[in-house]
């Protein structure tokens, strides 16, 4: 692949490309300064911090969209000396990360205000983590990948321990740190093997160098792939690398769990897809690797979720299962299959963040994350119960929610790309049938008569905080409409992946060629 970058200065183009990141960084610093300047930590000041954060996040998103609108043809181009790559995929993924960040900021305020005095740092940290994720989504160089991943990870460790006075939060942070350190070590080892075999850190060069090994089966190659992807599987919370997720999700502050389950996971998927599509095309063991991980994830995630009593733990296992579904797209590796993952991530962003928003609000109302404590909630908060039910049904994949369309397009793409994997789709659909049992159990408890003591204690009329309310409204609308009006989103998803595929020697899969 010939390198188009020959400049040795950072030009205007490069600056414009990372304009969203620049805005976010400025926002991050501004929040830190504002936090230092506001000593009293009054309600008013705290709300102001949240509003400022939102302004910067939305500004960053607007800059991204503006940049995107400037280039209708969207010719892929490397930026920053080849460290980043401006292509459709990078825009789509970064837009999703920013949307996820915006919702996270909006839904976390009520929780933070209740549980801690220091609010500004939280916003700075989630913005920093997202920054890492954005670099990761556009990375075109192993060094950029590593920097992005570490920025995301280290801020996440801090976030998990944000309520440092509660032991469970501290425990979650520590576990995450130790496990994450291990992941990083293995990842680096894998990357060093990549460098050793290819002699470059640039994706295009690596792809060219590794093409020589295509079809060759060598233990070093296999170890390299497994090490790189084991570390990513940890970020994606794919079984058997998911052990940390339930503990961390349960222990961490709920907004952090929401952030980890969506934004962190989306970023990890972005880099996984890019590595797979650009560097390791047609690698002999990849389909088998992802098949094993997909089946393990779906089955363990869903069946263990059946036994959970804590809603955050339950959602942790549910995200493990969802990662498993998405992997089926990687198994076939076609642009339709992988493109469906991107679409799946879009829908997952809203439905999972929406579900977490409800958990946050219910947690504030009842002071508990036990599913039992939601008993009879419908009598106090019917609207919220309706919203939560929509998110849960979407997670279970019931039409006409977006969750259904995401699953349909994904599984349809899998069967069309390679019918030999019909059995995998059957396993996935059986699993989603199982999943309905625990999702619907929450709905059932919320609507049965005898309210729990916690629900009884809820005052009849308290107004929902506006940020949480609007984030919920947006999530409900997206969950209901993203499926029915899927065409444009699907188009972006598939096109963005197609562009990645064009970069590499085409591996013809059986069945239909798209």
């Amino acid at each position, binding site marked *: 692949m010939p390198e188009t970058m020959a400049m040795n200065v950072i030009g205007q183009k490069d600056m414009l490309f990372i304009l969203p990141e620049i805005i976010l960084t400025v926002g991050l610093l501004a929040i830190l300064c504002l936090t230092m300047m506001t000593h009293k930590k009054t309600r008013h000041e705290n709300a102001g911090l949240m509003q400022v954060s939102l302004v910067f996040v939305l500004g960053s998103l607007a800059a991204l969209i503006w940049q995107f609108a400037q280039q209708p043809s969207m010719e892929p181009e490397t930026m920053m000396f080849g460290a980043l790559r401006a292509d459709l995929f990078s825009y789509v993924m970064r837009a999703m990360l920013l949307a996820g960040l915006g919702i996270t900021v909006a839904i976390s305020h009520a929780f933070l205000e209740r549980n801690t005095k220091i609010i500004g740092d939280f916003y700075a940290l989630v913005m920093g983590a997202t920054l890492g994720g954005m670099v990761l989504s556009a990375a075109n160089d192993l060094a950029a990948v590593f920097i992005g991943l570490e920025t995301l990870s280290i801020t996440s460790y801090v976030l998990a321990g944000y309520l440092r006075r509660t032991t469970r939060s501290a425990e979650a942070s520590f576990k995450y740190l130790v496990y994450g350190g291990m992941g990083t070590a293995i990842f680096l080892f894998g990357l060093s093997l990549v460098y050793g075999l290819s002699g470059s850190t640039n994706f295009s060069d690596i792809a060219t160098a590794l093409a020589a090994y295509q079809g060759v089966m060598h233990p070093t190659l296999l170890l390299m792939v497994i090490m790189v992807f084991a570390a990513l599987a940890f970020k994606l919370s794919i079984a058997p690398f998911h052990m940390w997720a339930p503990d961390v999700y349960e222990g961490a502050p709920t907004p952090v769990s929401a952030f980890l389950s969506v934004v962190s996971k989306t970023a990890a998927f972005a880099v996984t897809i890019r590595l797979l599509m650009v560097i390791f095309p047609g690698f002999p063991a990849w389909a088998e690797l992802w098949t094993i991980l997909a089946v393990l994830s779906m089955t363990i995630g869903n069946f263990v979720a059946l036994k959970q009593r804590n809603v955050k733990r339950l959602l942790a296992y549910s995200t493990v299962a969802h990662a498993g579904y998405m992997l089926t797209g990687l198994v076939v590796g076609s642009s*339709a299959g992988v493109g469906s993952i991107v679409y799946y991530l879009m829908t997952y962003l809203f439905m999972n963040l929406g579900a977490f928003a409800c958990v946050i609000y219910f947690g504030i109302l009842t002071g508990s994350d036990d599913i039992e404590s939601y008993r009879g909630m419908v009598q106090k908060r019917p609207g919220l119960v309706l919203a939560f039910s929509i998110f849960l049904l979407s997670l279970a994949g019931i039409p006409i929610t977006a969750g259904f369309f995401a699953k349909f397009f994904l599984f349809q793409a899998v069967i069309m790309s390679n019918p030999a994997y019909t059995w995998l789709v059957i396993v996935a659909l059986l699993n989603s049938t199982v999943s309905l049992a625990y999702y619907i159990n929450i709905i059932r408890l919320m609507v049965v008569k005898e309210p729990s003591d916690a629900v009884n204690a809820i005052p009849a009329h308290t107004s929902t905080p506006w940020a949480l309310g609007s984030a919920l409204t947006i999530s409900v609308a997206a969950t209901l409409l993203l499926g029915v009006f899927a065409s444009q989103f699907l188009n972006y998803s598939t096109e963005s992946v197609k562009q990645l595929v064009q970069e590499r020697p085409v591996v013809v899969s059986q069945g239909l060629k798209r």
Partner: protein
Amino acid sequence: MSNAVQDLVWLIPVYPLIAFLIIVLGRWTGLLKPMSGSPFVILATALGLIHTLLFLGNWGPAYTAVEQNWTWLQAGALQLPIGYFIDGTGMMMLLVVTSVSLLIQIYTHGYMGHDPGYSRFYAYLALFNFSMLSLVLSSNLFQMYIFWEMVGVSSYLLIGFWFTRPSAAAAATKAFLMNRVGDFGLLIGILTLLYFSWTYWQGLDPQQLLSFSQMDGAARTALAAAGPVAFTVMAILIFMGPMAKSAQLPLHTWLPDAMEGPTPISALIHAATMVAAGVFLIARMYPVFTISPNAMMIIAWIGALTAFVAATIALTQVDIKKALAYSTMSQLGYMVLAMGLGAYSAGLFHLMTHAYFKAMLFLCSGSVIHGCHEEQDMRKMGGLMKYMPITGITYLIGTIAITGVLPFAGFWSKDEIIASAAEQPLLFMIAIATAAMTAFYMFRTYFMTFHGTYRGHGHPHESPKVMTMPLAILAVPSVILGFALSGFFGLPAFSQYVSFGHAHHHDPNLGVMGLSILVALGGFLVAWLMYGQAKVIDPARIASAFKPVHTLLWNKWYFDQAYGFFARNIYLSFASLSAWFDRTVIDGIVGLTAGTVNASGGAMRALQNGRVQSYLVIFFIAVVLLTVVLMWMV
């Protein structure tokens, strides 16, 4: 005029959708008072009925199918269309759904008049109507699947309407879950069909993807591509959808439980419309089923067994709604049997007549329950004919209709089904035996409820006019519909309008007719001897004489127990096993820990017991294992 009626036929489901939105928004903004909203829904349904009738009137003499498609979603090469398709079968369903819905919605005003959830109930009814009518109008399989699931969701809401009752919430959950099992098969079936017939669809206008009008060629392409065995498996997977929705064995146990919902729902959804959607889907996918003889045979047998098993269970039921529910299941079994035998018109004819008389029977039961102060146990009823004559007479008409006595509706349609089974002795015997049992259990419910002396509490009273009027109207088709479309005496035959392939009318099989009337009379006679005025035979003695059989039937063939056993011992064990694997094994492998961790035990304890270390060891083991396994696999 006629063009406008045809072009705007998609409005039929939109009317109730608008009514639904009006109620939801009205209640939200407070513009609508709590006990209002019903006029919008009733008006919407009436509009739908009028539109349907106008369409029928302007259809023209040939009754050629009308189809229109638009592109809905585009995903790469896959274009999913949305549209409407109306042929004889679709028109029949439209008529049934709009007319039965309208009457039931009027009835509901009387039945739910004092329920605090009145508006919500009407909103759900409108949502259901929208989904059901959209399902009927669907021009392609994917679209139908979407609305197929949406009627499931509306049904979930309506069964769980009295959600404050734990039993209602449990029944709604069960119905939803069991339908998902069927829909899982249906979705896999759709995906495999799409794969096998892909080359065929590519040769067509993309807006016709999976359209029913082109299903014939798709089926043949798929058969050629898949081979007979895989094709049969695919057909059975598709059939799993109807199996759950139309309550066929073994996915039937949700239907009796669904009677927890308010009675108008039982009449509308669980007797007349939604459960019949399964049969409708079989009809729409008929090109796929007919070219697989094995699939047809399996369908016929499942239908026959369902009809038989359900009828036997109905023999011992004491809850009036449960008895009718098993009766519905049994009659649906007849329809599925007919479809499996290739008797397309007969199956759908029975669907139509059954929709009217079973809706009426359910509404009668609602009137009875209402009049007896929310009592459902038939042992605490009796002698009601004196107190509620209109309900009693209409119930009797419904009973005669379902029993299959000349010239009532059920006779003509059921008889065609039994006649079509004439060439398969075993199926024929099952069908005849079921007919005898049907006569027995239906007259049993009639005698127990309306004859003898009143055994309940309080004073039973006739229901208000708003409830009895729909009963009287529904009695009309229950009496004449069969005869009017029987094809006798120069009258039109149902199969002229609703048929698969070329219309053919069977000559009446007089022998079968005579036999079925005989067994119906036999069933009636036994019921009269046991439960009528005479009480010649004591039911308790029969029960004790056939104790094992009675126990089996009383326990509904132990299906629920078997599923309960499965859920408790296998399903949840697997969940426990997974949870155990997820936690304990890991600690066990490492051998560093003893006992489980108290989650609130604080950071240090959790770390000291080796949990985190064990995670790390698992990480390593997984990497090594994956490497080894992949080395060996590749």
